[in-house]
């Protein structure tokens, strides 16, 4: 189809505008990378923009210098695998029934509110901690995984997604003799991949990024997940001069808080960046395309 002049101009502007918007998202990241690869004195002088100055890997050396990073990385990995697995199972098992009408699910509003109320009111830090202590979850990976094993917000997203799937497909399955579990497993889930991918990504990101619970529930820094460990690295160089008053010139020499923080942010974000492309195809892979005819 031939495009008119106006359309062409619109398209040109559109591309220009969107590239600019894209660049706006990308540039801070490039700056971060440049800062993490520059010497601290160049960064302190504010002369680093998009190209590293006085190139050095010492920030990465600082962050990666001990086996602690690797240990913490694997704890984080374990947490994501366990946590997201548990999240998905519980979310699916909750969202599917709640997506049905009142006739199919007895006392549905009660159930719905039962979950929603946890989004509005929390137990508070100390009471939650006490529960974790009494359950003897303290200092175990389960203290990071079990509280919040059912992310209600994500569950609601999934529930709405299930609601939008065509009733006819499930009816067809039931006529063919499928039970509830078979319907869920063989019919609903396969057509819900975009929804599942979305909430899975949310869960992965939140498990990967959370650091506070690790600091609170773990009794030993060796059990910190990656983000908690990195958090301690960033805060401490500044604190150290005040607390130890002395000889930490070696660390200060090449790494100040800013380059270290940049390296940390970059390393911390990298795994998520690598997961994203694999989930991307589900987002773009057209919703329910061709599953209902007529």
């Amino acid at each position, binding site marked *: 189809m031939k495009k008119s002049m106006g359309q062409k101009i619109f398209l040109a502007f559109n591309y220009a505008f969107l590239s600019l918007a894209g660049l706006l998202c990308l540039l801070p990241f490039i700056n971060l990378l440049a800062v993490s690869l520059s*010497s*601290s*004195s*160049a960064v*302190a*002088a*504010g*002369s680093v923009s998009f190209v590293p100055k006085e190139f050095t890997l010492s920030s990465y050396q600082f962050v990666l210098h*001990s086996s*602690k990073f690797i240990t913490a990385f694997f704890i984080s990995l374990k947490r994501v695998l366990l946590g997201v697995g548990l999240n998905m199972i519980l979310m699916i098992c909750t969202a599917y029934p709640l997506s049905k009408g009142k006739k199919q699910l007895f006392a549905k509003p009660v159930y719905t509110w039962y979950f929603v109320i946890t989004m509005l*009111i*929390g*137990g*508070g*830090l*100390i*009471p939650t*901690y*006490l529960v974790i*202590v009494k359950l003897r979850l303290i*200092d175990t990976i389960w203290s990071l995984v079990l509280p919040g094993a059912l992310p209600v917000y994500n569950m609601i997203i999934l529930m709405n997604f299930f609601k939008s799937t065509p009733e006819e497909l499930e009816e067809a399955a039931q006529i063919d003799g499928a039970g509830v579990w078979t319907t869920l497993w063989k019919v609903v889930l396969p057509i819900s991949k975009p929804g599942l991918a979305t909430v899975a990504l949310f869960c992965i*990101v*939140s498990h990967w*990024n959370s650091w506070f619970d690790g*600091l*609170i529930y773990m*009794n*030993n*820094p*060796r059990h*910190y997940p990656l983000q908690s*460990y990195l*958090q*301690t*690295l960033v*805060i*401490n*160089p500044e*604190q*150290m*001069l005040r*607390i*130890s*008053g*002395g*000889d*930490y*010139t*070696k*660390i*200060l*020499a090449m790494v*100040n808080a*800013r380059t270290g923080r940049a390296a940390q942010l970059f390393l911390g974000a990298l795994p998520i960046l690598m997961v994203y492309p694999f989930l991307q195809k589900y987002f773009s892979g057209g919703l329910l395309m061709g599953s209902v005819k007529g």
Partner: protein
Amino acid sequence: MRNKIAEKMLAFALTGALLGSLAGCGNSGAAASDAGEAGTQNAVENAEEKAEGQAEAVSGKEEEDGPYGRYPETVTLTRAQMTCAATQWENGDDETNNPWTRTALEEFNIRLEDAWAADGSQYAEKINLSIASQTLPDVFWVNANQFKQVTELGLVADLTQVYEQYASDTLKGIMDSDREAFESGKIDGKLMGISTQHFGVISQMNCVWIRDDWMQKLNLKAPETLEDVYEICRQFTQNDPDGNGVDDTYGLAVDKSLGSLYALMNSYHAYPKIWLNKEDGQIEYGVIQSEVRNALEAFQGLYTEGILSKEFAVADNAKMTEDLVSGKVGVAIWGSSFGYAPGIDVIKNNGEEAIFKSYALPSADAEAVKLAIDWPVGNYVVVNKNCQNPEAAIKMINLYTRVTNEGTAEEYNAFKNNERDWGAIPFQVQNPMADYNQYVEISAVQDSRDTSGLTPDQLGKYEHVIDWIDNKNPDSVGQYSQVSREGAYGVMKPFVDNEQYVRTAYKGVSTPTMVEKMSSLDAMRDEVFTKIIMGEDIGAFDEFVESWNSLGGEDITGEMNELYGN
């Protein structure tokens, strides 16, 4: 972006929840206090009986049991350890197995166990949680507010007797060098917590730092009066000290926290951030005194002249540091650590001539300057009332003070270097004279280079001082500008010797209204002062004093007098 918002919402929700839960605690605490008091009373009495019984048993058991006495049988001591990610252990050591734990076992037969270990940034939080869940270890650190809490709840042991009997002379000397700090660990005459002390008033002092190559380029003399300092700032602003032909420099480094101006206010005998003991015996906050008004008027003039950056009101600390490092500004009001950061970066970017030299803060008039000193004690070592061997904690503190103050170079290196002394927390007690003595000793042998009399901590800094003098190694400029003869401590030492400082009346324990309102009062202070400096009429200060009083300041002052007044 999404995440950010979610994070913020979460933070908001958590804060709300936490506040809610705190309020809940308060209520239930009040309701239960009547019933609880009797119980506490009993517990205290029991603890006293126990302590007496123990003392007898101990003295009966072994005659020579003293500060370094060894237990015949292994004693287990659980502790809450504070860790630091930058600690570098050697030979596969870690937090639970290192020179400190091994020496404890070999020398005292004390087995140290971690009830938990937490990063320095989370330690206080973990202590709160441990108090709430009643899972306190034998020995731990508390901050002043927590100290008040655990003593009121009767959770910790009376250390008066074990301290008298077991504290080494070194430890007692350290405590004597700041009696006021030590006494703050006493409740009703009983020693309930051992102050971890501090690095001395000298480590809190500020001075004027001036870029030396600019001084020489413009042929300026060392400042003697405050007007001299301002004149130097003026020259740096107007006379292109970096010689690049562009008007891109200014005089005095200030950021939006106004920290350096608050320090400079000492020159006007104003102490905006501390609580003052007035002559009539009342305690008043420094920020509402009329001297602050005079200082603000002067700062307004500096801003009009262009001596302050036009952007100071939006510049954070990083931006101010950036200006110092990139050679945009030549004067800073800073503590003795200036040479470490940003000093090292200044040298790396501008060459060795660009070193900042330190000068005493001069007075605005004929009256001598006094420097403001904050409450210095961060933590107290406390022992759980259920601990069977409270004296074990004292022995461990003896060990720490011996190694760090009297140890050999090898010992010092094995126990302390690369942040390894964090492994001794909560048995760490600082010597308030250490920094002061570093200056005295190092500056004395700077020429003769006779290091035989130096202690290990002095030797470490001495080597850096010499490294700068001989090799101009930028990484050593921090120690040189701090403890060498030309260093900042030399400038500050007379202030210590002549007691030219004002200590705050606040001793770490916050009052209820302070917890609630102090941060918003501080925010209002910064906002109003920024406006005044940028040109608003000075009458705004009088309005500020009024609103400060009516918005909670008056209540806080009343509470302060009740808590700390005579």
